[in-house]
């Protein structure tokens, strides 16, 4: 129960240590971030804006504010979509600041006992453990098949969030990928591929499509067997000790895979953004810091990797049968977190016969944000409303994205309002288009 013990209040040398005070000074209060913030747009309250939250952190650092309930509420309300970073001229690293502030808040102002138990079970028991995740998947499927999930609605926020989940596929469809998936035809190279923690339970088909499309492009995928979760949800929720432990396992597993230098292809934008900046979890003297830095450089998003391959070989793709037109929606941690915008668009542009329409705000958050749709279902739905209006105005009949959280949010949101727009991961489209080309 190390995680629970860690949460007893500790005396502080200085309030400055409660927040990343040095980073908070980068903000000059210009306010250009305000309108990009989904929670500011929905509440109109400046305390729910990036500038406002930094102002609060700064006040904590200056000893003007304690870690009170309202402060906690504002930290929790943030989706950490990082849209504000994209427009911040001063280069404020809001995501890292928020992760730091959440971490300190957890350790210096403990939550209620039930909340701590829920966090412990979620972050420390479930996520790092494949068997526990499988079990959870099976339980959820049981609830869904028996209709018991409808009762869950009456058990608070979490219950309402659960009832929103898409259908969990039967176990055979949730099978894990083998340790190695050979290139079809001539091998052009090898890569490391991650399956993720929740992905195999909800979107094993996306993982299969990822591996299959890489194989069709001539790449053999290697899957590390001895770790499960990258720790992005831990870092996101301020559990740095959990994030460090996950990161160490992940780094080691990927150092031991193949010759230890394989590019690590990631099909989940949230994980990728975290994996590309996980070194900040470790002190610069910690040997893991250097290992994490080396690891970060190996990470590549699926869209970057595939786009480069398609470009190098000037491959043209043919559109598979799917409801048209399609629209692309940027996952926040792809565009704001990793600066990847052109690559998915360039891939889509290569697919001949794919009729495309544009969302008017493709870079706006859909409200999924990791566990946010479970912890803040009402806010998450309110934020999603705007996206849904945008989708309807665009006339798209298939929505393409590249992050399991976003895919989940879109699927359950579209189902909730009784629409039939299809939702696909970019990898599923690429796989289908590559197969179309072959046939």
């Amino acid at each position: 129960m190390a995680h629970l013990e860690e949460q007893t209040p500790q005396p502080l040398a200085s309030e400055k240590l409660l927040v990343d005070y040095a980073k908070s000074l980068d903000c000059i209060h210009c306010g250009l971030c305000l309108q990009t913030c989904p929670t500011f747009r929905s509440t109109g309250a400046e305390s729910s804006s990036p500038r406002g939250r930094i102002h609060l952190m700064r006040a904590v650092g200056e000893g003007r504010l304690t870690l009170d309930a309202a402060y906690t509420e504002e930290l929790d309300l943030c989706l950490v979509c990082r849209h504000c970073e994209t427009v911040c001229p001063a280069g404020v690293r809001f995501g890292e600041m928020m992760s730091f502030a959440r971490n300190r808040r957890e350790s210096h102002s403990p939550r209620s006992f039930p909340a701590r138990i829920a966090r412990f079970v979620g972050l420390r028991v479930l996520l790092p453990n494949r068997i526990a995740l499988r079990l959870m998947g099976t339980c959820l499927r049981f609830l869904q098949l028996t209709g018991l999930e409808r009762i869950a609605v009456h058990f608070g926020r979490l219950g309402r969030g659960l009832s929103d989940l898409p259908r969990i596929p039967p176990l055979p469809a949730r099978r894990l990928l083998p340790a190695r998936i050979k290139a079809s035809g001539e091998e052009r190279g090898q890569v490391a591929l991650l399956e993720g923690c929740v992905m195999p339970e909800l979107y094993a088909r996306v993982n299969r499509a990822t591996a299959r499309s890489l194989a069709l492009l001539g790449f053999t995928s290697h899957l590390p067997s001895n770790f499960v979760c990258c720790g992005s949800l831990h870092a996101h929720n301020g559990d740095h000790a959990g994030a460090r432990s996950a990161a160490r396992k992940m780094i080691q597993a990927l150092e031991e895979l193949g010759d230890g230098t394989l590019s690590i292809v990631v099909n989940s934008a949230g994980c990728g953004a975290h994996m590309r900046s996980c070194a900040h979890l470790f002190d610069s003297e910690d040997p893991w810091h250097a290992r994490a830095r080396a690891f970060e450089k190996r990470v590549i998003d699926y869209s970057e990797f595939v786009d480069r391959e398609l470009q190098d070989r000037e491959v043209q793709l043919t559109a598979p049968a799917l409801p048209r037109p399609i629209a692309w929606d940027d996952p926040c941690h792809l565009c704001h977190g990793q600066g990847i915008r052109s690559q998915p668009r360039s891939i889509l542009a290569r697919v001949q016969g794919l009729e495309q329409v544009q969302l008017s705000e493709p870079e706006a958050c859909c409200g999924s944000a990791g566990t946010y749709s479970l912890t803040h279902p009402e806010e998450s739905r309110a934020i999603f409303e705007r996206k849904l209006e945008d989708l309807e105005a665009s006339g798209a009949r298939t929505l393409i994205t590249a992050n399991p959280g976003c895919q989940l949010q879109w699927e359950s949101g579209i189902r909730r309002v009784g629409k039939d727009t299809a939702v696909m991961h970019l990898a599923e489209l690429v796989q289908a288009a590559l197969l179309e080309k072959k046939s």
Partner: protein
Amino acid sequence: MHRLAQELRSILGPRGLIDDPTKLLPYESDGLAMVAVPAELVCLPRDTQEAAACLALLHREGVPVVARGAGTGLAGGATPVANGVVVSTARMRDILEVNPLDRFARVQAGVVNVDLTRAASRHGLRYAPDPSSQMACTIGGNVANNSGGPHCFKHGATTRHIQGLVIVAHDGEILDLSEPHLDPVGYDLVGLFVGSEGTFGLATEVTVKLVPTPALDEVLLAVFSTLDDACDCVSEIIASRLEPSALEILDKLTIEAVEASVFAAGYPVGAEAVLLMEVEGAGPEVEGTSRAIRKIVDRHSPLDVRSARNAEERRKLWAGRKGAFGAMGRIAPDLYVADAVVPRSRLRELIRTTIAICHERNLRLANVFHAGDGNLHPNICYDRRNEEEVARVLEAGHLILKACVEAGGALTGEHGVGLEKLEQMDLLFAPHDLDAMCRVRDVWDPERRMNPGKLVPLRACMELRTTRLEHKPEGIA
């Protein structure tokens, strides 16, 4: 305050009122971060009716009111006042009507400048005033400050683009000044209201003029080895009766900050100054003007002149200019942006003066300004925690404004007076001028509860009673 909060909440709904001290903290400053006054309450009305009910109640209780848009203003116009309530337009963001045939739009005051432009662009139209903070600032805030922007050189500042207003007066009365036509009949009350910085009342709905998007726009970038050359070049363009749509100068420090930011525009790092110019209109007109401009630029020994090749390059060059203020955050924890206007024939001399004033006080200065309008923005770097430095910055700001006024200029080009320039108002105005302003203000707000202590200096208006509200018998409960 507790009883007042309850009554306001019954008007505005549970999410329409902020009274938690923690949640109120971010409202203590606007874009002028060096001044902080705690807000007692923040009201977030959703429409004119709610705002009117809210103001009527505050009138009955005798509580001062500060209107706030996005809080991006740089002169402290939206800084709360002691014992006052902030009325924010952040939940009034509906675009009520876009009429492409009569070329106007009607919006709620909290609509963001860039959202209006985006809505208009679907009809081949745009809202011309484009403050650098346009991606965040609201139309209501633009009305309050008569905001400018790079393109106001050609199109004029906000006041030229406002056709009508719905105003909630100090006592909650709704004044509908929406004019269906461009030229007001009788007194131009709308014209009077624009630029009144929240001291006349609260604008809740704004009817704006829309102008056609130009057929062609060309963005030129000239690089100079001295700031003097860039200034002289602008002075000559103006004197030659040429009319580009924007003329902006960025100095070396600004270029470095912008190029290090997410708004990196491709300005040459290391150059002493760049001049960013835009020419818009029909094809032949654009061609002719840019040719004439290039001739003038060539006479001022430029290191390089080039024109943006495509829309993406044009967008980047502008994004860099508009992000310049924020990008300076990389160089200093805080930034003081002065805002003065000078005769355009004396740009070089006054830019030199600003540099000398800051140099003498050992302050880092970056100059980025609307050269075409003669609107200087000396950006002085400081750290708000260093009181002695703040004092030096304020002194420098004062001397710069004094020099500009003495040269025949004005105190503010577009940011407004707010709190920041109160002290300097008597550089420009004699006591009887200020008295006259107070009399106009009294017509709109006889109790002087609307944004008290801003725009017109305290001593002129004898506003002591609003700042010492606690002594007022019918003061806040």
